[in-house]
């Protein structure tokens, strides 16, 4: 009789908390179940508490990998962007989250890795490496990368400058970039407040853009960042 072939999972010898620190994460039944359930609850709560509305869902590419970019008003942003996607796709959607903030203690780690499926983005020490990781994610089919190119939450509700990282990432590629505008997130939960207020929240999904004819150089990257910033502003004025 032939010997059986065992294929232990890559993370079988890691403690459960250590597993959450891995990226890319290995598919995990418990994590998928917990993520689906918590996202379902969060969607329900946002619908009730914030009267969450998704506008322009038809603009999301049906297949292939793509990037979603949006203004960053509050901690509600990532769950709200995920709410714009079908529940079945949230395990392949990765909101980039600052590794110096979201992966520092146990509760934030559990929230970031399990609920939001965040990608740890090193915005201080090694943003280039993080961009390489983003590129790797987008090379796989059906992945969705959610980025907030301002790099941090707004302090006054205005739209800040977009960092050029998104430009380096998408220049010269056919990867669709979907500009989105998060309306009301800052009013609902401004930086420094403990709990969200019951303000109306709206995710407006704009039309996808591509940057095939650009080069991955600083000048073009800045142009792309600016073009996307303008697209987000245009999206915010879109007729509803």
């Amino acid at each position: 009789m032939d010997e059986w072939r065992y294929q232990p999972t890559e993370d079988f010898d890691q403690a459960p908390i250590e597993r959450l620190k891995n990226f890319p994460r290995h598919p995990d039944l418990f994590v998928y179940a917990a993520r689906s359930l918590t996202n379902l609850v969060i969607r329900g709560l946002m619908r009730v508490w914030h009267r969450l509305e998704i506008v322009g869902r038809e603009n999301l590419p049906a297949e292939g990998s793509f990037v979603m970019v949006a203004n960053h008003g509050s901690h509600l942003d990532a769950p709200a962007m995920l709410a714009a996607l079908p529940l079945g796709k949230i395990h392949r959607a990765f909101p980039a989250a600052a590794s110096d903030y979201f992966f520092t203690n146990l509760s934030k780690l559990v929230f970031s890795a399990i609920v939001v499926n965040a990608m740890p983005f090193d915005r201080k020490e090694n943003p280039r490496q993080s961009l390489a990781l983003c590129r790797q994610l987008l090379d796989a089919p059906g992945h969705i990368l959610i980025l907030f190119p301002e790099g941090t939450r707004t302090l006054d509700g205005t739209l800040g400058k977009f960092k050029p990282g998104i430009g380096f990432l998408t220049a010269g590629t056919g990867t669709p970039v979907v500009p989105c505008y998060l309306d009301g997130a800052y009013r609902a939960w401004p930086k420094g407040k403990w709990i969200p207020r019951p303000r109306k929240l709206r995710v407006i999904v704009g039309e996808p853009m591509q940057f095939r004819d650009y080069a991955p150089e600083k000048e073009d990257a800045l142009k792309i960042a600016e073009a996307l910033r303008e697209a987000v502003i245009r999206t915010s004025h879109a007729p509803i």
Partner: protein
Amino acid sequence: MNPVFRSYLVVLVGLLVVAGGLLAVLRFGFKKNVDHAWKAYRGWLIIIPLVFTALWFGRLTTIIFFTLLALGAFSEFARATGLYRDWWMTGIVLLGIAAVGVVSYVDTPVTGEPGWYGMLMALPVYVVSAILMIPIIRDRAKGQLQPIALALLGFIYMGWMFGHLAFLANARNAYGYLLYLLFAVPLCDIAAFTFGRIFGRRKFRPNISPNKTWAGALGAFAVSMAFPWLVRFSFPELGTRELLLAGVIVGVGSQLGDLSISVIKRDIGIKDMGALLEGHGGVLDRVDSLIYVAPLFFHMIRYFRGLG
């Protein structure tokens, strides 16, 4: 507070204090390297309060506690063997294990006795058929026997057999039985280790567990045979015959359980099933010796004394 519970609590707290003191003397007094023992000790500092807390709150928390352990143990087994990649198989077994917990909690229909014993005995029928149904639904035969076999072993061994501990929470003397088992089984492990270190020369099963010796196995058996008399306060209702049987069940069953998991680990080629607690490995590494003991002790008690 239940007097049996209190007695075990006092003994265990006493042992932890003494062991901690001993480690401190060895470390600081004699400058010995006790890192390994210290890691294991830190693990016990978590395990023991956790067990007492779960049991202290009563039947429901005890059942939940053992069910979670069974779910954890099976998940580790599934990860280590690769069965975890098959989510349907894994999911069905996890549901089956949760069902063991549920039938341990609900009352028997008609008679109203706590715990649905008949369904506990019938559960393998349903879970086994559910597991076998998966390849049929998929209409796939190639390579299916391995996941089927692994899922069956996982459910029967780590879910159902181990799950008998959860059902013991329904016994009138649940504290006596459970605390005895939870104390006697690790003691048997420790006795095997100690006797092996002092007297061990001939290897017991060198291809499965190279550190085990005949002296260790026999010493552990002897300690396990004597132990029920030492803690007779746990179950004053038991006679000599039952105490003897309890000793045999723990003395043989716990070593067999340990070796069975070692067979699996050796075959896969891994050292520990998981890494939940430093110094202890995974859940399955900690509870492996309890798996045979649980159903054997349960049925012995039920046969001679009844649970209620």
